[in-house]
């Protein structure tokens, strides 16, 4: 698969403050990449660099094999972008702004536009100043989803949308995914990323701390095990690969390291197990580890 986005060791300083110290990741053709990280970790800065809105201080960043700063216009012909906070001209109506964005992007599809306006239940005749946050976001989304691009960049696109609209957005992303489009999805709604993303990139304090598929990440971390047995569960505490052991009578909770799974199961087997639940870490668990540092 070819690499649509390739970011290598990108750095960005704002004056003396270091916003990005080392950002490296790739997006392959047809891949949906979830881009997550705490507030202020550098997600939007990275995206603005990718869009050529700001200039990196060091490193390489390419989209479609072209430099994001020098060849931004070539790149922009084939991408769509929705910012996390869509700001609109108060004196224009939503419909006018959508038409303008389609025209400026080129290659908009009128039927899709009308279909999306209906699906997202947007009133296009209202002036943008009377729109709520969610409705402004819809304008940005409809404009981006009505054009045909190869790469879609969404920066917290569903902030302010209700769950119904959020699920419509997710359906649309799945449609793009099945059409083989590449997507960079920055989001705080981890269930959304979990559902849609093939790969997750976690950024913290301007540095990529984790990248890979959810499967890979889960493999590296521990599952949570809850068990109940007739035998003395305290025996489990000393088994290799068991961490954070807590006992409550004949019930026990602990985290289990994946590579010691066999030893753990063997040890548990001797205790006349009544119940043994192992749950893989959710993205939230993975993420919390990075939040908490």
């Amino acid at each position, binding site marked *: 698969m070819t690499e649509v986005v390739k970011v290598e060791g990108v750095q960005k300083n704002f004056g003396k403050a270091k916003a990005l110290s080392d950002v490296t990741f790739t997006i392959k053709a047809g891949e949906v990449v979830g881009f997550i990280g705490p507030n202020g970790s550098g997600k939007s800065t990275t995206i603005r660099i990718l869009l050529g809105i700001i200039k990196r201080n060091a490193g390489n960043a390419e989209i479609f094999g072209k430099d994001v700063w020098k060849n931004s216009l070539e790149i922009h012909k084939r991408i769509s972008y929705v910012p996390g906070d869509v700001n609109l001209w108060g004196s224009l109506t939503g419909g006018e702004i959508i038409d303008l964005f389609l025209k400026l*992007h080129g290659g908009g599809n009128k039927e899709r536009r009308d279909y999306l306006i209906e699906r997202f239940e947007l009133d296009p*005749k209202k002036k943008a100043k009377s729109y709520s946050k969610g409705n402004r976001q819809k304008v940005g989304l409809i404009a981006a989803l009505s054009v045909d691009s190869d790469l879609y960049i969404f920066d917290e696109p569903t902030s302010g949308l209700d769950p119904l609209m959020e699920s419509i957005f997710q359906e649309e992303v799945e449609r793009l995914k099945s059409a083989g489009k590449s997507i960079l999805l920055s989001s705080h709604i981890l269930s959304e990323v979990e559902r849609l993303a093939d790969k997750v990139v976690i950024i913290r304090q301007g540095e990529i701390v984790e990248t890979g598929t959810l499967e890979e990440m889960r493999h590296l971390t521990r599952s949570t095990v809850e068990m109940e047995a007739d035998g003395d569960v305290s025996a489990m505490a000393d088994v290799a690969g068991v961490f954070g052991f807590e006992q409550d009578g004949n019930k026990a909770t602990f985290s289990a390291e994946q590579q010691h799974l066999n030893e753990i199961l063997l040890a548990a087997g001797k205790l006349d197990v009544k119940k043994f639940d192992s749950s893989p870490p959710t993205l939230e668990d993975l993420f919390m580890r990075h939040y908490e540092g």
Partner: protein
Amino acid sequence: MKEKFARWDILFLQYLKRDWKKIIIWILGIGLFSAGFIPAFKELAKGDGLAGMYETMLNPAMISMVGPTPIDSAADYTLGAMYAHEMLLFCGLVSMIVSLLHVVGHTRKEEDLGLTELVRSFQIGRQANSLATMAETVLINVLLAVVISIVMMSFNADTITVEGSFLFGASVGAAGIIGAVLGLLFAQLMPNAHGATGISLGLVGLLYMGRAGTDASNADLSMINPMGWTYLTYPFTENNWMPLIFALIFSVIVIMIAFVFEGNRDMGAGYLPEKEGRAHAKRSLLSVQGLFVRLNRGAIIGWSIGFLVMGAAYGSIYGDMQTFLQSNEIMQQMFTQAEVSLEESFTSTIIMVMVVLVSILPIVIINKLFAEENRSHLSQIFSTKVSRTALYWTTVGLAIFAGVLGTLLSVAGLGGTALSFMESDTPMGMKDFFVSGFNLWPSVLFFTGLSALIIGWVPAAGKLVYIYLAYSFILNYFGGIVDFPDWFLKTAIQSWMPEMPVESFDLTVFITITAISVALMVLGYIGYKRRDMAEGV
């Protein structure tokens, strides 16, 4: 009552704390402007100045601008009479507009921004914010009235009496209160702050024009106009307090109506329906050019009307100019130069002043590009194939166009009115006005280029250009009176160009300044291509 206005006093004190800097600037600004020109008018009044000014002011065009005077013979036209006549209406107008903007900004605007929602979730009455804002505005206007009176009396001038000074101050304060209640009323009626500001400013404009008509024909009719209740007090002459009582009654009634309207509406709603817009864009909007024309349309139309009116207003003075100039030493010094007709001398100065003002519009348009960028309005446009080149040159092009249009309209307004007001034996024709105006056009282009340069490299400093513009305005305006050294005068860009029609056209200067301006634009473009876009910084 308690439910409605609970704890408004806490908000009131909070607002005084929040706004204290603004309040000081407001009171000192309008206060000194209203009262501080007395020494300058004293100078004007010397010799035959008062009589000459009286003649000039009988011109219906002047009355429609500054209002009438109750005096009917030049002998009674004292310093006080002249000061109130020429200053009071304008000061009242400014006071009215500032109060109006303040009230809308702190009532409806805060509602639109969602601040009111937050405030109302505390133990604060539903209408406490409006009451607190009104109380604050009334207090400011009372202080303003006191400051004006004290400053006026401090000059110790003849005919600037104690009663007149208090009445003058009270009239300006009353104008502010009328503006405040109008702002509050429309803040309730309109669907948002933008509409409230627009409609109430429009109404103030209408009242001003309405009184222009009645003042010129029959000043008694102006008494039914709320704006009339300020300047028809005639301080220093008739000292009529009656209009202020009308203003007070009017304000109390309007404020009660506004509170009833506010009490009966939902937060965020208005009474006048919001017009439904287009579901789809017109073809004319669908381009970078179309978008920027649309975004700047209001400013361009508004300023253009302003330029035309300004030209016409100055043009209307030509008729009585001779009387005016001959009676006044300072003015003579300013306008009369050897072997030149008064008309020509006057024209060159006025055109200079007008062209400086015309330069404001291109600066506004260019700074708009940065405002759009900073408000993140352009985020989604930056990520399309629209280039920075297109954004930059569209804006600069529009600014250049606005500069040409402004020059054209102001000169046309001036020339057209001047020629119709002047006696037939004038050496000047329409062509002279146009040539004189466009002779200075490179200075407009220079300000356009300077703004473009700054937007390209240090956009946050974009407003500095206004300071340089104000500086060159002052230098040019007083350059004729005070003997400044040449190098000092030359720090204002306009001073490099010949003062037509008095001096003759200089092609080299014209081309040089044009070329420098274009170079500034190109330099700005290089910066704009290279710099980071500043979103929400």
